[in-house]
């Protein structure tokens, strides 16, 4: 699960990690209060930061939500020094409009929250990231003197500028490792000492909140040699959310596709894509392979949809509903490998769902496994707009035909 910068910072603060202070607002009515609150804390310079689940906000472009060609502002993050009036003007203009960055795609994301934050003067930007290294099943801390830019770029162009420290699961982060990182980042004096405290607190937070990614980019050295997180990105491990029921409140449904939310309610794993052939499959690997097959057959997959291990009539019907709410869908391919689930039961489910929903596009159903032949018979004799197939190859050809007809 992804969370916003302001939420990440509020979590990190609880673990004693030094972060840029700020107040999140959802309407301009809250703006003055936010500024006053920060002023009371001694803040004299201000930054306005758009809160969306995507990177590259500073270089993004804000478009008018009602007329998408109209550029409202260039930049989704702006520094205003002590000029509160200007900051307020900017905040008012961008709030509720659409921010497009290199990570959002053309459709962009609506800015529904602003983080009014303390403006800081700093002399250096660094990079820090913590994640799992899948090659050895250990967490790795990555640090670089090249902060503020995309770390993928640094990794590709100057990999020697990335320092990596692997954490032994049984003993955790050790002091000598923290020092190794600090030396690698060329830190000295009080910044060195500050960093040791910072990284220890940061790693502790990473472990305790069950994060799957924690990125501080940039990590800054302020003019008075303090180490502080200017930005913070946290992804939480979905599998561990049951341990942290309070994190459910951090979920921002506005950032998720409404169809995906609907699907998750019926225990379906759905991801919307841009193609014209919808698909419904049991199992994630087979679902990906089915998407690939659609492409080979001349179509483009409209979605990823895993109905899970057991495909009942009810899950099939819910799957249909979700696929059909995507208006680009011109055909549907159902690919179920029966195995322990009996194919004739799935076939009955498909027929029943088709009758209930009156599906306007051709449906290709490929059932394989236990009772596949009986299933084919049920589908063929249903009198519905359903094309049955037993092999994967056959299914692909049927899809090609179905698209051609439309």
């Amino acid at each position, binding site marked *: 699960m992804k969370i916003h910068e302001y939420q990440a910072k509020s979590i990190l603060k609880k673990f004693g990690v030094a972060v840029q202070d700020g107040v999140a607002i959802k309407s301009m009515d809250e703006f003055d209060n936010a500024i006053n609150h920060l002023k009371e804390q001694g803040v004299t310079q201000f930054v306005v930061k758009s809160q969306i689940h995507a990177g590259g906000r500073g270089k993004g472009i804000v478009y008018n939500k009602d007329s998408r060609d109209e550029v409202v502002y260039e930049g989704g993050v702006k520094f205003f020094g002590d000029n509160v009036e200007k900051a307020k003007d900017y905040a008012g203009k961008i709030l509720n409009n659409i921010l497009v960055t290199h*990570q959002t795609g053309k459709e962009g994301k609506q800015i529904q929250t602003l983080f009014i934050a303390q403006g800081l003067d700093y002399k250096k930007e660094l990079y820090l990231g913590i994640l*799992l290294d*899948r*090659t050895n*099943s*250990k*967490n790795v801390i990555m640090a670089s003197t090249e902060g503020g830019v995309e*770390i*993928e770029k640094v*990794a590709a162009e100057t990999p020697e500028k990335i320092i990596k420290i692997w954490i*032994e*699961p*049984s003993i955790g982060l050790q002091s000598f490792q923290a020092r190794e990182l600090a030396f690698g980042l060329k830190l000295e004096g009080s910044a060195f000492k500050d960093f040791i405290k910072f990284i220890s607190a940061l790693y502790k937070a990473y*472990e305790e909140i*069950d994060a*799957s990614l924690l990125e501080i980019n940039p990590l800054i050295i302020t003019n008075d040699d303090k180490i502080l997180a200017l930005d913070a990105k946290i992804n939480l*491990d*979905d*599998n*561990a959310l*049951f*341990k942290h029921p309070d994190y459910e409140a951090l979920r921002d449904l506005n950032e998720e596709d409404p169809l995906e939310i609907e699907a998750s309610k019926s225990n379906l*794993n759905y*991801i919307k*894509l841009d193609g014209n052939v919808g698909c419904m*499959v*049991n*199992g*994630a*690997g*087979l*679902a*990906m*392979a*089915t*998407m*690939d*097959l*659609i*492409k*080979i057959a001349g179509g*483009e*997959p409209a979605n*990823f949809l*895993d109905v899970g*291990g057991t495909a009942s009539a009810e899950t099939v019907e819910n799957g249909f509903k979700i696929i059909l709410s995507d208006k680009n869908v011109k055909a549907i391919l159902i690919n179920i*490998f*029966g*195995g*322990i689930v009996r194919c004739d039961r799935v076939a009955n489910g498909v027929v029943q769902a088709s009758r209930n929903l009156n599906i306007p596009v051709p449906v290709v159903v490929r059932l*394989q*496994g*236990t009772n596949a032949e009986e299933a084919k018979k049920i589908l063929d004799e249903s009198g519905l707009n359903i094309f049955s197939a037993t*092999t*994967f*190859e056959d*299914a*692909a050809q049927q899809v090609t035909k179905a698209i051609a007809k439309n």
Partner: protein
Amino acid sequence: MSILVNKKSKIVVQGITGSEGTFHTTQMIEYGSNVVAGVTPGKGGTLFQNKIPVFNSVREAVEATKANVSIIFVPSAFSADAIIEATDADVNLVVCITEGIPTKDMIKVYDYVQSKNTHGHTMRFIGPNCPGIISPGECKVGIMPGFIHLKGKVGVISRSGTLTYEAVDQLTKLGIGQSTCIGIGGDPVIGTRFLDAIKLFNNDKNTEAILMIGEIGGNAEEEAAYFIKKHVKKPVIGFIAGKTAPPGRRMGHAGAIISGGKGTAEEKIKVMNECGIVVAESPADIGITVKNVLEKFKAKAKKKKEVKKLKEVKKLKKLKEVKKKKGNKKLKKDKKKKK
């Protein structure tokens, strides 16, 4: 014949009385697997389906029944503990079917098993979030449909469940049997990686070819491919799912995600091709690709044998001729001497 599990495997089922455990234990027994015990804390002393003894702990089960393989069906919150318990009870193989185990828990489990193994132990775990392992005709420790398999000589390794069934089904329909099929699971931290399974198949005399079915995310396929290039003489066939998957989106499996431009299908296929692995283009062609590669390999091996034979025949002829000449010379010399 097979790796890791065979007719001699004695299985203990952790979570045998739960609904998943009950269903799949019945299926495994039907397939002919030797399930000797079950474990459900608090239900020790009872019998599962009137014949299989249930114990409170894996250690008790192992002591009483000499079980050497464990399969885990307990809920995700308790799975890490279950794997560690099985490891501690000294079974040789633990298969964890459960999905949704927190990564943090799995990092600790993996580390614990590794550290135990450096102390003279040899314990292997498969999964989590996997369909398990089957040696067709001998033993099934998992949730895969048994009937689609055929006993034979192709080793199958895969990160997914139903896609493996699909591939196995294609093989069986072409008359190509399998030595052992392992579903290693779709999570970021897994006990047995492609590389580990490839090593086992490479050392198994009865596995003639290996089929590896990967998917986007991570670099386990590449890691295995480099090993194959260096050490594996058996033909290896591959498939990678997720060519059409967009970056940054998790495709069902926690491990199946393209991030920072890494882990794409194209990248994996390129490395696999460079390492001599034949990669099927379409998921519909996995079986036929294996068949073609096997035929080519066998034809090549036959030709090699023939060439070798021909060379040997030639060598033999030459040797005979040399002997003859030498013999003649000797004869002449002898004659001279006699003179």
